[in-house]
């Protein structure tokens, strides 16, 4: 059998590297490499605005503009490793900023535009951001009031109108030279930060390095079958890891033409884009697929979708019925893929060209070694038991040997260390491995929520609710939703002097939405007289969830053992309806 690392080594041979030993820069591989090889006039990105007007950027234009932005950053005093973040919709400037920041060897990240002021403040502060590229209105609504509290933030580069205390992105870019020589970049130099959430604590800033580009390239070639000539559309927002890894980096490194839709979801619009742009590879989420399914086969039948060669999905389990629907409606099945913010690239997939196993996330890629494990505590130390054999269930754990693996949680070495045990990376996902080696997703080992393809940590939502004067305690769970997989529901107890009412319920949801934005705020909220606790005093979200879904409490044992505390069965939840 081919050693696992050979898969990545072979893929790396397709990439250039920078002159000099041990130098690799994502932006060079994504853009400048193609220009150097004579493909500069090929369309790299095609932006489709809300009215349907297309604005294309060739690889050559993208190379020049990103070089100009690298010069802007150097002129502003940005040094290698400094954090440069963006808060902007899917405009060309966002992509130019990303590639320019990578050329300047800054560490780049995108903040999701549906976040409210609080998650944005927390992330800017956590990463110690030096430069923020922000659309004027988003900045005014979500950053301006907290700017004084982010001492590291030296420059705001405004897209659109100039806001107080900002510089004009467009003016700076226009005045900058569009030639830039990327300085030698060590492959293990930090390049990107992607935020993710755990059950407890603030969001984690997963750090990825320039070497990750090998993983983006190899997996996009294999699991999405991307090849020059393809018109590829990744529908994920760049505010989440998929939108950067597979919406920005992977397609450019593969030299394809990538579609960026600036409109909101609309089934008819999506089918029209596939037809007009002759999209050959589509990478989307099960939530989006369920929205297309809702729109009915008649709508799809009005469009010529024969250009579609590969359709793949990520973010949450893809049900078998969606695979069948796609065969009948799109003319191709859907290949589910599995990976995480931390893994940086696709790890497990139903590969194109092979039979799709409906309802399964697929098999590990050639460069990935996956195990099913059970956690065991012995003398206060965590150990893992590997569960061998066919048709076994447990936690998915991976041997961390692929290039796009995260290298740190920024400034949190302890949390980083906790992600590993006995030489394995612990994913927190519970899976079943069948006799053929295919994996199926069973659920999470912890209490994070998967909503519309996004991983949401209950802690951030509970903290926002607790900031309201009426709230004594809050517990947040994921509740099944027909379209978005799960939606968040909050249970709260009130402080003395406050009474549960429909008006207070709306007030609390409104309070959370103003702070967190719609993507994180609870969609539903119920009052309780008391919340269930472990004996050590932690709120047992799993009991709340079991209560909400009518599940037996026996399902709780695994998670509670992981918490190191027994459930206090004498304290059932008592939920009020208003």
């Amino acid at each position, binding site marked *: 059998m081919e050693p696992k690392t050979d898969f990545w080594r072979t893929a790396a041979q397709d990439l250039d590297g920078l002159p000099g030993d041990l130098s690799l820069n994502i932006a060079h591989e994504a853009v400048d490499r193609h220009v150097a090889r004579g493909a500069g006039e090929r369309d790299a990105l095609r932006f489709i605005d809300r009215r349907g007007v297309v604005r294309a950027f060739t690889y050559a234009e993208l190379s020049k503009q990103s070089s100009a932005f690298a010069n802007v950053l150097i002129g502003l005093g940005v040094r290698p490793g400094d954090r440069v973040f963006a808060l902007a919709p899917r405009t060309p400037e966002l992509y130019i900023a990303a590639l320019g920041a990578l050329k300047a060897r800054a560490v780049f990240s995108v903040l999701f535009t*549906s976040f*409210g002021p609080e998650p944005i403040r927390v992330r800017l502060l956590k990463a110690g951001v030096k430069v923020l590229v922000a659309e004027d209105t988003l900045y005014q609504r979500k950053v301006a009031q907290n700017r004084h509290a982010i001492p590291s933030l030296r420059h705001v580069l405004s897209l659109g109108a100039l806001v107080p205390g900002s510089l004009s992105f467009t003016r700076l870019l226009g005045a900058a030279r569009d030639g830039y020589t990327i300085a030698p970049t060590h492959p293990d130099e930090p390049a990107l930060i992607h935020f993710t959430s755990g059950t407890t604590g603030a969001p984690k800033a997963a750090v990825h390095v320039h070497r990750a580009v090998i993983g983006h390239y190899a997996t996009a070639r294999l699991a999405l079958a991307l090849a020059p000539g393809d018109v590829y559309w990744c529908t994920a927002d760049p505010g989440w890891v998929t939108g950067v890894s597979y919406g920005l980096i992977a397609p450019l490194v593969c030299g394809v033409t990538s579609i960026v839709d600036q409109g*909101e*979801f*609309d*089934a*008819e*619009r999506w089918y029209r884009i596939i037809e007009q742009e002759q999209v050959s590879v589509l990478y989307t989420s099960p939530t989006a697929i369920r*929205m297309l399914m*809702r*729109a*009915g086969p008649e*709508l799809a039948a009005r469009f010529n979708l024969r250009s579609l060669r590969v359709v793949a999905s990520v973010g949450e389990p893809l049900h078998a019925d969606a695979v069948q629907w796609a065969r009948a409606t799109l003319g191709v099945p859907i290949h589910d893929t599995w990976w995480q913010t931390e893994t940086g690239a696709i790890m497990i997939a139903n590969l194109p060209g092979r039979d799709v196993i409906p309802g399964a996330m697929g098999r590990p890629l050639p460069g990935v070694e996956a195990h099913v494990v059970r956690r065991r505590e012995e003398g206060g130390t965590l150990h893992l038991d590997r569960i061998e054999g066919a048709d076994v269930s447990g936690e998915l754990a991976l041997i961390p040997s692929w290039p796009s693996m995260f290298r740190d949680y920024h400034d949190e070495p302890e949390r980083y260390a906790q992600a590993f045990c006995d030489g394995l990376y612990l994913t927190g996902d519970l899976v079943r491995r069948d006799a053929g080696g295919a994996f199926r997703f069973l659920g999470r080992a912890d209490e994070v929520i998967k*909503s*519309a393809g996004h991983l949401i940590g209950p802690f951030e939502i509970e903290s926002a609710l607790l900031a309201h004067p009426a709230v004594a305690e809050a517990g947040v769970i994921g509740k099944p*939703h027909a*379209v*978005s997989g799960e*939606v968040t529901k909050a249970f709260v107890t009130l402080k003395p002097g406050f009474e549960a009412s429909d008006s207070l319920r*709306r*007030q609390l*949801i*409104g*309070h959370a*939405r*103003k702070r967190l*934005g*719609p*993507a994180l705020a609870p*969609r539903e909220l119920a009052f309780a007289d008391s919340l269930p606790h472990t004996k050590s005093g932690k709120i047992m979200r799993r009991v709340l969830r079991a209560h909400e879904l009518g599940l037996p409490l026996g399902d709780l044992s695994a998670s509670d053992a992981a918490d190191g505390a027994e459930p206090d069965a004498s304290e059932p939840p008592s939920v009020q309806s208003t």
Partner: protein
Amino acid sequence: MNEDVLRQIVCTALLEIAPEVEIEKLDPEVSFHDQIDFDSVDYLNLMLHLEKVLGIHIPDSAYTRLSSLEGCLTYLDPLLADRPQPPEET
């Protein structure tokens, strides 16, 4: 149905999904997405809520026509022309 009653129903539905919205500041001609923090799950929930409250079916293909307050009124008004008042909520 009287237009004011219908407007009230749509605003109430909107406030059920996004209670923080200041209705009086809303530009009826501009899409919800463009003036308030309103994502696609909110939008779907608004459509489902209107269906429930008004006892009608809104096909997915019509959703984009209901993307603003004025759009909602223009789309819903003819459907409810014969209705003196909305059905009681259950």
